[in-house]
């Protein structure tokens, strides 16, 4: 957890789902997320092997109240090579979500935008947003 000891490392082979909750984070012309979706030292994802895409979509639509939001995915191992470390940790807001993980960005200040842009470009589209 962000305010305590780190949770278990998420394995490199895992696929991670990232929610696109706002149209401001979607580059429609290129059908990819903005780097802003990854430009933070800590953000939430779901571990794909622990939850279906459909259940993730339900979370996005119902729990988070984003009926037009989308989902992209990326490989945990690739993100790790860029400096993003995924840890299997509980979501304080939705503690029943067993698939939740936090992604921590360890990039230096003058590297973090490159890392975020690279990850945004590496994402696969799972559910396109319909903003």
């Amino acid at each position: 957890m962000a305010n305590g000891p780190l949770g278990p490392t998420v394995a490199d082979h895992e696929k991670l789902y990232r929610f696109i909750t706002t149209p401001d984070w979607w580059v429609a012309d290129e059908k990819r997320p903005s780097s802003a979706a990854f430009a933070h030292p800590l953000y939430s994802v779901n571990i794909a092997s622990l939850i279906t895409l459909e259940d993730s979509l339900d979370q996005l639509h119902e729990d988070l109240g984003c009926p037009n939001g989308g989902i992209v995915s990326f490989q945990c191992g690739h993100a790790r090579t860029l400096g993003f470390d995924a840890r299997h940790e509980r979501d304080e807001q939705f503690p029943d979500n067993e698939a939740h993980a936090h992604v921590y960005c360890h990039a230096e200040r003058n590297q973090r935008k490159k890392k975020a842009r690279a990850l945004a470009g590496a994402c696969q589209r799972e559910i396109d947003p319909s903003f």
Partner: protein
Amino acid sequence: MTQTLERNESTRMRQEFEQPPGSELYVGRYSTGAEDLVDAELDRLGRLPANWDAQGAQPIDSRIIEAAKTLVRLLRYEPIGLPKIVPIRNGNLQFEWNENGRTLELEIETPSTIHFLKWDPTANIEEEDLYPIDDSDTTKTLIAWFWGAGIATYG
């Protein structure tokens, strides 16, 4: 429910910003009309409530909004095109230009500092750094890089 309605209104305003009537007139030059559009978009972002990303984002810092408006005014007569203005979870925002995989980002990281990214994988360009927000020459140079020579003249 209230947050959903606020998000819907925010979405409508963002769409009007990205596709204003006659928006093609603004591509390649920077007019007073475009400045008004950018100001309106900044006002919209300034009104985003806490948790605007539904995952704990902070409201956009009012000092960042004001710094962005000052930056826009400094560029009033420059051919910068219409950027996408993107909020960041920690209360910052960035101007973004994206075309064919090339990206220029100008993140207003503090009221006095811009953190930029030049990104063009086809040309092996991946540069980022920080500079003072009042260094307009650097801002103009970066934007000219993005657009290339094609519109680097006054329209």
